[in-house]
């Protein structure tokens, strides 16, 4: 321990870090103690060597660094391969400024061009948009035609007279159903419930403009229901609200989940809305439920060009349709559309169990 302290003192002495009195005292001690004197001399020599060592190490390090950096810059060469790589770097160093100027000119040019494009683009874009919408409209017609022919082929074997299928749901327990107008291709229809029971139905009213239609079950087997579990909602759905649908893309009832993706329908049609959901032929006319089990729309068309873009007629349209009906014919005064849902608090599975009995498969045929 003492040696440690002594060494520290010697180092401080040799580094000149001592105060004058301390130094004088230590020099006195050196004179009187030959061992300490010897230690100081030896350590001084050692420290000098250490300094030289430190300097040389530092210098060697700097030399290496300079050597490597010059190699990188291509100022010096060490053999073919390295010089080839060095040349590229050398060229870079030489033309750095030129490259910078060229890059900035290119940047400015790009900015000017993009500026010009964005200045002239609105009108051009509009044209394209209109053209595009025209295309989609044509597409829609083609889809409709394809739908017609394919369903005709599909159903040709079991019942040759069936022209199209779709989905319908009760709006009044007495047997009034709502579906899409485009579902009803023929002059008559039969509706099938989810247990496979078939009922004769009569087309009461078709509104091609709204793409809505009303059917009335005219069958002795049908037992009128007092109240429906779901209500039909007049107000609009909020963007992003979760929605689900039940329908008959096949003979069995199929459930699908989605959300409201736009408040208006195709081409800004405010009578309908856009839903992101998976839907197929046969889903047409199917009810769209919100999470409370209220019907908010009737699934009608989908956009072929985009995935999962489906349009639904807003449920408000049902009220308009029925009002129109009542105006024209007093025999429909008794139709009462349910406005409140009794399945509100239930979970999804139980909601479906309650409502699925009132959703029918529609088969339109020619008498």
């Amino acid at each position, binding site marked *: 321990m003492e040696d440690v302290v002594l060494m520290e003192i010697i180092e401080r002495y040799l580094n000149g870090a001592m105060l004058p009195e301390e130094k004088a005292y230590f020099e006195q001690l050196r004179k009187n103690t030959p061992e300490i004197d010897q230690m100081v001399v030896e350590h001084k020599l*050692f420290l000098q060597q250490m300094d*030289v060592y430190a300097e*040389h190490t530092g*210098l060697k390090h700097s030399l290496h660094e*300079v*050597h490597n950096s010059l190699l990188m810059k291509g*100022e*010096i060469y060490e053999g073919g391969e390295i010089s080839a790589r060095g040349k590229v770097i050398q060229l870079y160093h030489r033309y750095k400024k030129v490259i910078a100027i060229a890059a900035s000119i290119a940047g400015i040019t790009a900015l000017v061009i993009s500026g010009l494009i964005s200045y002239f683009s609105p009108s051009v874009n509009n044209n394209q948009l209109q053209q595009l919408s025209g295309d989609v409209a044509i597409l829609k017609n083609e889809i409709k035609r394809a739908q017609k022919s394919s369903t005709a082929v599909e159903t040709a074997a079991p019942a040759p007279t069936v022209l199209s299928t779709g989905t319908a749901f009760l709006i009044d327990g007495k047997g009034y159903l709502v579906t899409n107008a485009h579902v009803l291709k023929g002059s008559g229809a039969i509706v099938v419930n989810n247990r496979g029971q078939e009922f004769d139905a009569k087309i009461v009213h078709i509104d091609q403009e709204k793409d809505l239609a009303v059917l009335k079950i005219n069958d002795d087997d049908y037992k009128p229901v007092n109240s429906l579990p779901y209500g039909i909602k007049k107000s609009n759905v909020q963007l992003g609200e979760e929605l689900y649908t039940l329908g008959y893309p096949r003979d069995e009832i199929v459930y699908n989940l989605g959300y409201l993706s736009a408040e208006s329908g195709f081409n800004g049609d405010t009578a309908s809305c856009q839903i992101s959901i998976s839907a197929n032929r046969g889903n047409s006319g199917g009810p769209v439920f919100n999470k409370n089990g209220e019907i908010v729309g009737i699934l009608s068309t989908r956009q072929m060009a985009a995935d999962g873009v489906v349009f639904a007629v807003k449920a408000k349209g049902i009220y308009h349709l029925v009002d129109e009906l009542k105006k024209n014919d007093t025999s429909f005064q008794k139709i009462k559309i349910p406005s409140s849902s009794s399945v509100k608090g239930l979970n999804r599975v139980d909601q479906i169990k309650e409502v699925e009995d009132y959703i029918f498969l529609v088969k339109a045929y020619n008498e």
Partner: protein
Amino acid sequence: MASFWVTFIVVLVLKTAKVKSDTNEQVLLRGLVNNDSKAIETIYKDNFNMIQAFILNNNGTYDDARDIFQEAVITLYEKAKSESFVLTSQIKTYIYSVCRRLWLKRLQQMGRYISAPDGIEETVPVEEDMEIHEKRNADFMIMDRAMNSLGEPCKSLLEAYYIQRKGMTEISVEFGYTNADNAKNQKYKCLMRLKKLFFTQYNIGE
């Protein structure tokens, strides 16, 4: 080939002798003494290619050229640092002279002595400086060997204190000692070992 580089060297030497002013050289040497990387880079750029050409043309490799040149710069550094320093020649001439001596000596050691053409290119007597340098170099090697046989963490500890000149507190933090006193104790033990290793070799050398 030989005649080519001879003329090459002559042209270079004559050209630079005219262009370079003495004050410029003094600035460079001061920079070298202060370990200024800009000065080192300039000296390197101005002289290395000439030395490399010399070494390569005399049975040397790229690595030899680098070693010899760097050793010459160290010699120049030592000379510039000494109090009685007077540079009587151009830096280029001095470096060339040292490199030439060093390389001929190394060729001799390898038993592949080739009489390098002398005469046309300018050289200055550097024998005295070379002797000092050799002594310094030997001392350096002793210290280097001693340092390297110390092992870790002694080596790094002493390097941190004596070369990087860090404080004991900083060192204790860096090496993970609980306090500066413990680091000091460890440093003392390492120092004693290093001194023992160093002086055994050093005294034999004497």
